[in-house]
């Protein structure tokens, strides 16, 4: 029997994700992948994994996993209460577990996605170049679906022999931990007049309950634009901030549509995407136009 993790108690929403799927947007396939990519890269680096090793992206509630073999894991992303066999455990550090050990996540304290990485990665079939789950198409991950009680996840055995000092630490979402989310002007930025921009940049939006891996709706002051309502649909991207007719923003996330017809006032910079992705319903967010932040040393 191969090395496996057993899902004892699945949270309402947990899927297998890696760095995502590129090269198939022209077939309408979104990139998917870890919403908090920076934390995922960090956890894989902590374990000596390849950056693309798949892990569990765990959301919405608590639950438990059992390791049916000796393994090395690391947990990060959202802040959560972690226990191994009832003993409190630390995030962001490698944890050696023995066969039969149980990891329990009591609840998520702050943030949206807890990431559970394991040395060797989660071994599920590669679909269109990625192990990431895309629920809308039923592909990737474990049978293209969420994890549920009793699932058994195989642990991969591939780890690179040479540790590569990747550049994630200069771009990390974790170090960029406060202040406004940095954006650049979107393709339809000029449809919005000064008053609209002032509203957009001075409103403290709240992440709506109606948000998931496809998109985050934001509650707050509505914005209007001067363009005609009917913009021909055009390609979109993760982090694009769209303003639909109602005027409150919708941000396209990893599993969101590859095209859209709503005007895009701005796009979240890569340097802030992971931090934004970790915002949970009710969390406040402000936006500022600015440079990527990657150049600052």
């Amino acid at each position: 029997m191969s090395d496996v993790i057993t899902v004892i108690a699945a949270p309402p929403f947990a899927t297998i994700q890696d760095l995502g799927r590129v090269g198939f947007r022209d077939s309408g396939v979104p990139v998917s992948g870890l919403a908090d990519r920076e934390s995922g890269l960090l956890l894989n680096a902590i374990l000596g994994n390849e950056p693309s090793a798949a892990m569990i992206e765990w959301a919405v509630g608590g639950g438990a996993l059992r390791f049916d073999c000796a393994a090395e894991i690391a947990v990060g992303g959202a802040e959560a209460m972690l226990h191994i066999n009832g003993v409190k455990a630390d995030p962001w550090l490698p944890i050696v577990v023995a066969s039969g050990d149980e990891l329990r996540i009591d609840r998520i304290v702050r943030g949206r996605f807890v990431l559970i990485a394991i040395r060797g990665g989660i071994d599920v079939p590669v679909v269109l170049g990625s192990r990431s789950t895309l629920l809308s198409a039923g592909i990737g991950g474990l049978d293209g679906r969420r994890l549920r009680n009793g699932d058994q996840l195989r642990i991969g055995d591939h780890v690179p022999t040479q540790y590569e000092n990747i550049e994630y630490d200069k771009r990390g979402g974790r170090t960029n931990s406060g202040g406004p989310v940095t954006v650049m002007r979107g393709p339809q930025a000029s449809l919005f007049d000064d008053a609209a921009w002032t509203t957009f940049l001075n409103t403290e939006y709240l992440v709506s309950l109606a948000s998931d891996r496809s998109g985050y709706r934001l509650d707050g002051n509505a914005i209007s634009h001067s363009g005609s309502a009917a913009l021909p649909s055009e390609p979109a991207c993760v982090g694009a901030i769209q303003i639909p007719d109602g005027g409150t923003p919708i941000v396209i996330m990893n599993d969101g549509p590859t095209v859209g017809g709503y005007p895009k006032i701005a796009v979240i910079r890569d340097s802030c995407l992971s931090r934004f992705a970790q915002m949970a319903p009710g969390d406040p967010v402000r936006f500022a136009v600015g440079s990527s932040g990657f150049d600052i040393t």
Partner: protein
Amino acid sequence: MDEFPIIQQLGDDALLVTFAHTISWDVGIRVRSAARRIRNTHLSSVTDVVPAYTTLAVYFDSRAVSFATVSSEVATLIGDADAASDDRSTLIEIPVRYDGPDLAEVAERTGLTQDELIEKHCSRTYRAYMTGFAPGFTYLGDLDEALVLPRRTSPRVRVPAGSVAIAGAQTAVYPLVTPGGWHLIGTTSIAMFDPARDPPALVRAGDSVRFVRIDG
């Protein structure tokens, strides 16, 4: 006055080229021609080239190449593109049973018999304008004017995979179970989206499509 084509940043990892603000057949040809040219050049660190109605996007790895570099390469390529010279396309035939739940209503609202409606839907070759909304969902046009209807006032929560549908001047096949507001006039058993295939979408922007009526 805008000077087309316009190249803009679409976030840190993509650029958007706009060829016009209104949809037309000629603009579609220019978009597809430019997309083909960019794709065939295999620019380094470019991962996706996505044509749409009046725009195309080029996605790249911004850790490996800058917007300025990709932008100038793309500008040169689209500047050289001879608009109408190479609008070749693949013809894909899709077998359809015209048994959709909205067939009778569409016939009634368009004042056609069901046979006339079916005949008008399957007698022309459609061009694929854009793929998106869902994996494998491709917008096809233009529909015979007699079949043009606005979308349903209340969208369905769950449209079955393989549903052949019309709305506005367009027609499409729902590749997966999704919500949808189009009128369902038929079904096909052909897989519009197959993750084991490369490309996974049967029909992509630029392809030509004919619907072939089958019985039973």
